[in-house]
C-alpha cells in the first residue's frame, strides 16, 4: 500500500479525484471527507497495493501530479512499533508503557506481571491507604541459595508527579524483558533483589486523575473534613516538623500531626525498618527538576558517607546524560534545592541505609508535572 500526496490545481482535477476515491473506495487520510477536497489544498490518499498502478495511470492521464509520501505503509507501521516481539510473552501484551495509566490499570498490570513472570516476580501486601486501598510492592528476585542485598524503589509519593509511577512500571518491564539477554542486568539479579512500589500515594494519584491534576498530598481528612491531605514526604521520622514544612493543613507541605501519622508512611516505614539490615539502597522517584538528591534536607551537615554518596550519584548523572544529553544536578537537598524535614530519603539514611537518593525526573519546568507522554520513553530510557 502507498500513500500519495496530491495538490489538485483545478476544480476539474478535484472532481476527478473525488470520483476516483468513491469508485475505487480509496482511503482518505487528509482530508477525511471527499467533499472537503479543494484545489490548492493538500490531499493524502492511501492506495491499496493492487490498485496502485491503476491509480497512478489515471492520475497521469489527467495530468494530475503526485508524490509518494509513504512508499510502503506496512513497513512504515512496523518501524514505528516498539520492538517487543521477542519477549512479549513475558510482559502484559498490549500494555502501553509510553502512556500514563490510571490506578485500576496499574493494579491489573501488577497482577499480570506476576502471572507472566512468576519465576522472578512476586506481588506482596504492604499496607492500606487512608481511604482503605491496598498498597502492593513487587519483588524481583532470582531464586538462589544465598541471601541477597536489597534495592528498594518507590514511585508516586506525590500524586501529581505522573512520570514517576510511569518510570517504575517501565523499570520493571525493562528488567523482565532483558534479564536473560543483558549481562549487566543478569549479574545484577544474581547479587541483588529489587523491591518496587509503583504507587505509594494511591489515593492521591487517583484524586489527581479524577478531580485535581495538580494534587500532591495524600487524602487524609483533617478538621472534620474541611481540609485534606498530608505531604507524605514531610511525614517521615527524620527531624520531623523542624524545617521546610507547614503545620497548616491547607498547605502543600503540611507535615501531618506527628511523624508517621499517615498509614501510607507507616506501611513503608515499618517494612523498611524490618528489612533495613539487608537494604543497600533506597531510591525514591519524584518529578520535576532533574536532580539526584542526597541526604539531608533538614541540615547542611553532610552525611557520614557523603563522599561515596556523591561519587555514585555523579556517575549516575553522567550515565544519564550520555543517553540524550539531559543534565541532572547532583547534591544534597539542603544545599541545592531547599530545606525540608521528614523526607523518606533522609529517614532511610538515618536508620542506616547507606545509599539513599531522591530522583527528580524531567523536566526543568517547561511542562513541569504535566509532562507529555512522548517524553515518557526518553525519560525512562535515560534514567534506566
Amino acid at each position, binding site marked *: 500500500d502507498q500513500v500519495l500526496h496530491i495538490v489538485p490545481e483545478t476544480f476539474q482535477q478535484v472532481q476527478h479525484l473525488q470520483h476516483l476515491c468513491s469508485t475505487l473506495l480509496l482511503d482518505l487520510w487528509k482530508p477525511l471527507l471527499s467533499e472537503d477536497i479543494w484545489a490548492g489544498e493538500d490531499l493524502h490518499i492511501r492506495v491499496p497495493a493492487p490498485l496502485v498502478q491503476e491509480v497512478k495511470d489515471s492520475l497521469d492521464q489527467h495530468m494530475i501530479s503526485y508524490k509518494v509520501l509513504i512508499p510502503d505503509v506496512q513497513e512504515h507501521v512496523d518501524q514505528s512499533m516498539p520492538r517487543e516481539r521477542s519477549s512479549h510473552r513475558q510482559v502484559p501484551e498490549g500494555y502501553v508503557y509510553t*502512556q*500514563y495509566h490510571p490506578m485500576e490499570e496499574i493494579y491489573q498490570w501488577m497482577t499480570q506481571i506476576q502471572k507472566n513472570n512468576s519465576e522472578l516476580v512476586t506481588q506482596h501486601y504492604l499496607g492500606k491507604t487512608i481511604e482503605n486501598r491496598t498498597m502492593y510492592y513487587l519483588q524481583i528476585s532470582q531464586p538462589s541459595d544465598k541471601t541477597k542485598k536489597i534495592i528498594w524503589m518507590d514511585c508516586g509519593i506525590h500524586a501529581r508527579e505522573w512520570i514517576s509511577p510511569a518510570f517504575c512500571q517501565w523499570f520493571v518491564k525493562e528488567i523482565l524483558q532483558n534479564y536473560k539477554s543483558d549481562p549487566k542486568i543478569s549479574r545484577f539479579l544474581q547479587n541483588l533483589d529489587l523491591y518496587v512500589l509503583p504507587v505509594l500515594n494511591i489515593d492521591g494519584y487517583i484524586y489527581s*486523575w479524577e478531580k485535581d*491534576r*495538580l494534587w*500532591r498530598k495524600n487524602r487524609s481528612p483533617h478538621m472534620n473534613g*474541611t*481540609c485534606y491531605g498530608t*505531604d507524605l514526604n514531610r511525614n517521615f521520622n527524620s527531624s520531623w516538623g523542624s524545617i521546610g514544612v*507547614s503545620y497548616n493543613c*491547607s*498547605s*502543600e*507541605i503540611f507535615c501531618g500531626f506527628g511523624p508517621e501519622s499517615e498509614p501510607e508512611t507507616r506501611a513503608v516505614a515499618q517494612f523498611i525498618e524490618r528489612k533495613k539490615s539487608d537494604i543497600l539502597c533506597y531510591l525514591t522517584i519524584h518529578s520535576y*527538576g532533574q536532580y539526584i538528591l542526597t541526604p539531608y534536607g533538614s541540615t547542611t551537615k553532610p552525611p557520614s558517607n557523603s563522599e561515596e554518596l556523591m561519587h555514585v550519584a555523579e556517575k549516575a548523572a553522567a550515565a544519564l546524560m550520555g543517553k540524550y544529553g539531559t543534565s541532572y544536578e547532583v547534591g544534597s537537598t539542603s544545599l541545592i*534545592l*531547599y530545606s525540608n524535614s521528614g523526607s523518606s530519603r533522609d529517614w532511610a539514611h538515618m536508620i542506616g541505609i547507606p545509599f539513599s537518593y531522591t530522583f527528580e525526573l524531567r523536566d526543568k*519546568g*517547561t*511542562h*513541569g*508535572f*504535566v*509532562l*507529555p*507522554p512522548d*517524553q515518557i520513553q526518553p525519560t525512562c530510557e535515560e534514567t534506566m
Partner: protein
Amino acid sequence: DIGDVGHKYHLELVLEDVLDKDSTVNCTAEVLYHLGNKNIAPDVHFTIEGELKNTDEADNIFYNRIKSLEKELVAENIPDSHGNVSPEMEPIRLLAWVASGYVIWQNSTENTKFQLAQIKHVKQVKRSDEYLEFDYMILLHEMVSQEIIPWQMTVLWHPQHGVQVTQDSRQPKHA
C-alpha cells in the same frame, strides 16, 4: 551584598530557543533583590549578545488565524492532564508562558521559584483595535512552598508591538 539596599546577582546565561534547541544566544544580566519590602519586583538589567530569531512569519499566521475566527476563542486545560497540547493551542500556550514570565518577575523574591504549571482557562476578548486580547486564568507552581497558585492575567499582543500584561491578580485557592 549591597548594604541597606539588597542583594545583587551577576549572571551569565545561555538562552535557548524553545522551538529550536540548537539556536542559542549568550546573555548577561544583573538582578537586584530589594531588602525588606517584598512588594517591589527585583531590578533586572540584561544584554543579549547577538540577535534573536525573526518570527514575523509565524506571528502573522497566528495573528491572521485569530483575527479571522468567527467566534472569540475559548479554551481550557492547556496542556491537558496527560501533557498534550493541540497544534492550534500551541501559540496560545507560548503567549501565556511569556506573559506569565512578567507576572513571575513582578512577584519573585530570593526565596521563590515559580513556573507556569497549566492554563486553566483562556478567553479571547473582542477588541475594536488591531490588538489581540486574551483573559487567562493560569496556575503557577511555586517550588519552595510547593503551592499551586491560581492567577488571572489580561494579555495584549500584536505581531509588531509584542506582549503586554495589562492586568493581573492573584486568586484565592479554592478549597
